[in-house]
């Protein structure tokens, strides 16, 4: 078997999780602290990708960024770039599918921390960015890391939406998940077994790595 699928899987899952972390964690903090009308609606919309079937999401993504869409047409004509049938499309699919898991978990973590610490930091002259970075984030660290781990696991296992947007091109967009499907369909059972076991080890290993990083902050030197 060839290892392109593993490389592409890791490349896609890690890129997607980095993006999800950069966007999702500050957003989760904002959601946890903001008080406005329609907050419940925003929270519900964020969760939509968690309850929709991945193929449905993939279909919507195709509608949104496909070559015939406004966004897709613009990207194609100006940058000669397309999400469709490229690894970036797999990243987009994994990002949309996995980010809600991160936001949900991190938001619960931020909500469980008393906002008085953030107020104290403000009275001590700190900017909102500093309040987030030095107070909110370290105090909700466990939940944030748990959210990142969940998002990573979800991105690594993403199948449906990825298939719809990025396709299943060996060496280009074929991830471990889609490769397993391919192998089973083609009757290559030993390939499927090796891929499945490898994906299991990689997923559990990554989760374990994130989990060890999430130790209690008190032990920090």
């Amino acid at each position, binding site marked *: 078997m060839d290892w392109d699928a593993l490389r592409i899987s890791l490349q896609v899952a890690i890129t997607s999780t980095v993006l999800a972390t950069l966007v999702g964690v500050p957003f989760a903090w904002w959601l946890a602290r903001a008080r406005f009308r329609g907050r419940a609606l925003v929270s519900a919309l964020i969760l939509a990708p968690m309850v929709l079937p991945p193929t449905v999401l993939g279909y919507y993504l195709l509608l949104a960024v496909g070559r015939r869409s406004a966004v897709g047409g613009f990207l194609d004509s100006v940058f000669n770039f397309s999400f469709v049938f490229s690894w970036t499309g797999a990243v987009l699919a994994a990002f949309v599918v996995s980010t809600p898991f991160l936001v949900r978990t991190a938001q619960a973590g931020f909500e469980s921390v008393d906002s008085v*610490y953030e107020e104290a930091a*403000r009275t*001590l002259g700190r900017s909102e960015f500093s309040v987030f970075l030095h107070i909110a984030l370290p105090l909700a660290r466990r939940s944030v890391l748990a959210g990142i781990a969940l998002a990573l696991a979800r991105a690594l296992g993403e199948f449906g939406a990825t298939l719809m947007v990025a396709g299943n091109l060996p060496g280009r967009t074929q991830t471990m998940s889609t490769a397993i499907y391919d192998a089973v369909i083609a009757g290559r059972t030993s390939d499927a077994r090796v891929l499945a076991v490898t994906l299991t080890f990689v997923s559990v290993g990554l989760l374990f790595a994130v989990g060890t990083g999430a130790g209690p902050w008190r032990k920090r030197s």
Partner: protein
Amino acid sequence: MEEALVSLTVDIHVQAGDFLLDTAFTSQAGSTALLGASGAGKSLTLRAVAGLQAPTSGHIIQGERTLFSSEDRVDLPARRRNIGYLFQDYALFPHLTVIENIAFGLRGCPQGNQRAAVARMVDLLRLHGLEGRFPAGLSGGERQRVALGRALAPRPDLLLLDEPFSALDTPSREALIEEFTMLREAIGVPTVLVTHDIGEAYALAEHLVVMGQGRVLQSGPKREVFHHPCSPEVARLVGVQNVFNQVHGGKAVVVGVRAGDMEAVPCGTSRSDSNATLMQAVDRGVQLLGRFITTSGIHLLAELDRALASDLVPGSEWSVHAREGMSLTWPGVDRTLPLT
């Protein structure tokens, strides 16, 4: 402290959920106490001064600085107000050490100045040996000193304290109040304190603002408020234990007397001028109090002479009166009290 710099004017409306706060007071003193029962709006007032709660309208002016003004569209964010805030439960950052907590407000200062300021706080607040500890490993008194150090290190223009001593047990509380008074003199920062305890307010402030149900009931120099409360409600908050309705010269009045301003004399069998029956003696150690009920049905609390300890028989007859000139009267009837 120059007067112009320490004056504080607060005149604000705040809508926080169902609670409506309508506070207005001016304090020229370097130390002000907001006194009131829980739910009076004291803490909300403090939060508005700090910039943690936005008023719907009004203005907050400290010295020559406008912190908030709805007319002039000024609303300085909390981080630019340079106001130290001592939170009720201290809110020490649990993931930072004592030193890191104290240095938190010094970001942006040169390293050398930071170290000097932290060292000064460690000295002033006697925190030697605790520098590397986390808040979880500190006693209540130590936490409070660290929180004070954290609030004072950036040299704030104003220090706000929310029930600073209520979470502490009596011995460390007395010591801390004394220590705090000396510290404030050493640092020279104006303070606004929130408390429900008149003793604490009196010990720590020159100016008293008495609050109830989201409004200011009375504001003035502490002696004036303490000795001349403007209403029975204020009287109770400044520690007048006996407040009752009475008809005096054909007019309804409300009378207030502190337990310490009552004179209680036991009546022997021969004496006929008794007017009250002793219901219970309450020995608080530092104070011996008697609960009486008068012949007209008024409950009174009077401080008793220790020499009378042997006469404290429940049911015995006593002569109980306010000392000459020590009773307060307000015209009208207090509907919250039984009529006599």
